[in-house]
């Protein structure tokens, strides 16, 4: 198992990049600790697959270093970095049986036959494909093929990391659930560093302990699913994580807080003091639909909003309200009922009302 470190890494597909836009991956430092289950999450084109290929050695970074357990591996090819990769479309050797597919990497490493047999049998049982070992690999279903291509990594005891490049793309929706669960069980059982690339937040958060959210070639936040949900470090993370995403409103400074339309939001002392120091005009406030409360009674902390639309999604409802010229989405449970145009009083719990300056979250010193 290896600890994977990226030092001052950057990558551009153009010979001599000039501005930040020429970079597929902008300058960053990052560490994937040994044995962790990580996800690389972001929209298509944010550079996540490029990052994965840099770790696996299929792409040489134009700048910076890739370190495995502290050793520089830039010059090493994938075969010497001891990694395994599961691709978007199942890559299996059609002319071989499942057993031969799984034994292939071991045979190439000159592992004694007895050891190969035992190892392949063990991995096949873990992947629940032991009954298909002697079938031709090309007759398997898509999810079984992905299991085989993953098995080729697991059989090797010396594998330093397993990389997944959106492995569930071709899998039927109702099977995705089972394969995701299988990946999680395998991670707990083998304790191998795993990096999983996807654009689907549900897949990322159910698989990974820590998620790196990538946006425009940068890792804008690296945290647990809960941190990403409760304290999105960048407005993009707030928008991207959660369905629907965080309500984000542009505000102006005013005495005692911030203002949008006719609505004034009081802020904590440290937030006001901070706003004094930072001069930037790009100030935004964000709160998740899950954290806005509808209070039955009017008080000085509630804000009157008008109900625009109610989306009934079975287990919960999404209420779209109009407040100070801005749309606010509020998540309510099944029983919520209101007529369109009705007036409801919203309550913004202080700890969930987040302040963003220049798109980044401002937090108190201590935490």
């Amino acid at each position, binding site marked *: 198992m290896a600890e994977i470190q990226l030092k001052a890494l950057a990558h551009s597909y153009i010979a001599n990049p000039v501005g930040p836009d020429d970079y597929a991956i902008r300058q960053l430092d990052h560490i994937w600790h040994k044995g962790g289950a990580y996800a690389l999450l972001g*929209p*298509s*084109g944010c550079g996540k697959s490029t990052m994965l290929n840099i770790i696996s050695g299929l792409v040489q970074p134009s700048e910076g270093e890739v370190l495995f357990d502290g050793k520089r591996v830039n010059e090493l090819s994938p075969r010497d970095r001891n990694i395994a990769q599961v691709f978007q479309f199942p890559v299996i050797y059609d002319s071989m049986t499942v057993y031969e597919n799984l034994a292939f990497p071991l045979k190439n490493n000159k592992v004694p036959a007895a050891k190969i047999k035992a190892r392949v049998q063990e991995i096949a049982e873990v992947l629940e494909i032991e009954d298909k070992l002697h079938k031709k690999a090309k007759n398997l279903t898509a999810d079984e093929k992905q299991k085989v291509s993953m098995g080729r990594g697991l059989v090797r005891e010396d594998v330093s990391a397993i990389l997944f490049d959106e492995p569930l793309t071709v899998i*039927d*929706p*109702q099977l995705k*659930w089972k394969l*995701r*669960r299988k990946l*999680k*069980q395998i991670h*707990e059982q083998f304790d191998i560093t795993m990096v999983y690339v996807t*654009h*689907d*937040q*549900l897949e990322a*958060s*159910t698989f990974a302990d820590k998620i790196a959210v990538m946006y425009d070639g940068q890792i804008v936040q690296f945290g647990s*699913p*809960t941190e*990403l*949900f409760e304290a999105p470090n960048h407005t993009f993370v707030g*928008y*991207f*994580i*959660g*369905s*629907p*995403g965080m309500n984000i409103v542009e505000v102006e400074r005013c005495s005692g807080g911030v203002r949008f339309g006719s609505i004034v939001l009081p802020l904590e002392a440290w937030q006001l003091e901070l706003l004094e120091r930072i001069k930037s005009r790009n100030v935004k406030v964000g709160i*998740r639909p*899950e954290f806005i409360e509808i209070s039955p009674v009017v008080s000085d902390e509630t804000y009157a909003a008008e109900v625009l639309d109610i*989306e*009934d*999604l*079975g*287990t*919960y409802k999404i209420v779209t309200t109009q407040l100070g010229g801005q749309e606010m989405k509020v998540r309510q449970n*099944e*029983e919520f009922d209101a007529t369109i145009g009705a007036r409801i009083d919203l309550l913004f719990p202080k700890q969930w009302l987040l302040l963003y300056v220049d798109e980044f979250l401002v937090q108190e010193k201590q935490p």
Partner: protein
Amino acid sequence: MSLTLENLSRTVDGIDYVRDANLTFEAGSFNVLLGRTLAGKTSMMRLMAGLDKPTEGRVLHRGEDVTGQSVQRRNISMIYQQFINYPTLTVYENIASPLRLAKMAKSEIDRRVKETASMLQIEPLLKRYPLELSGGQQQRTAMARALVKDATLVLFDEPLVNLDYKLREELRAELRELFRERQCIAVYATTEANEALALGGTTTLLHEGRVVQTGPVMDVYRAPTNTLAAQLFSEPPMNMIRGRVTSTEVTFDEYSHHALTQELEKLTPGDYWFGIRPSHISLVPTNDDDLEMSMEVALSEISGSETFMHVENSHFEMVMQLMGVHQYHTGAPVKVYLPVNKLFVFDSSEQLVHTPSRVSGGAL
């Protein structure tokens, strides 16, 4: 101005793609075909469009039988899964092509193309070629071409499946908006239950070419006619537990015994299937007549705002969907509570006999 399918079937080389479908869609309605892969969604849509001929049954458009009519003469449009645009034409020409073929005046074409393009936020891309654009923009071009000609029937064949998770969310919201006032009939095929819920309108559940249930989305969701409909329309699948009702008690899987509550008394004794949605099971009793069960945690999947907890005991296993983060080690014992008022009950032939009372505000 409705579309009717009259005992429509299509069998090719012995395989029944569509079996005896009877459906009617009204003008101005948004209809979702929900079913697993190979459930017959695409085959049914192709029959509606006239791309395929049915082996039996009729397709009626505004009451008129159009079964034999060729696609060219029908006023329909279709959006495919793989962003189908004419690669050799610019985005502008792509959107304009149906209007040009309808020999519309040049100025009229220009106005309508620009209007539709801005509606789908691709006006700046009108001069570009489709293959230069991102997946989302290509699909928007295809949608613009479908909407510009004001077809009476617009068919979507899982159009968002190749797009990013977040982009799918946005396009779904836009689709809802676009079709709110239109008078045409929209038919949208998908494999995802939450897409059917998000898009609203009516939902038709399909399984192996057969219509399982059809109706307004909330009626189908809240009152699935049988266990299959209940399974098809929930993600993760609804928990199903076998149970026997006697005059005094209900026993689940010959294992846990519970007194009959006011809700369940109405049931005549016998074998039943009890369905409970993962989101309705809680770790804490919510009302006094909750059914309490002691289980073990098999696996807990945290997804930021929610936790999917798989719990099991020697007899059956269940999935729970809890708000917030709940960290449990595998094998940890846990007590779960099933609110009786949230139970679905299906008889031994899997037909629905009882729906949760309080949820849908009053009796079925």
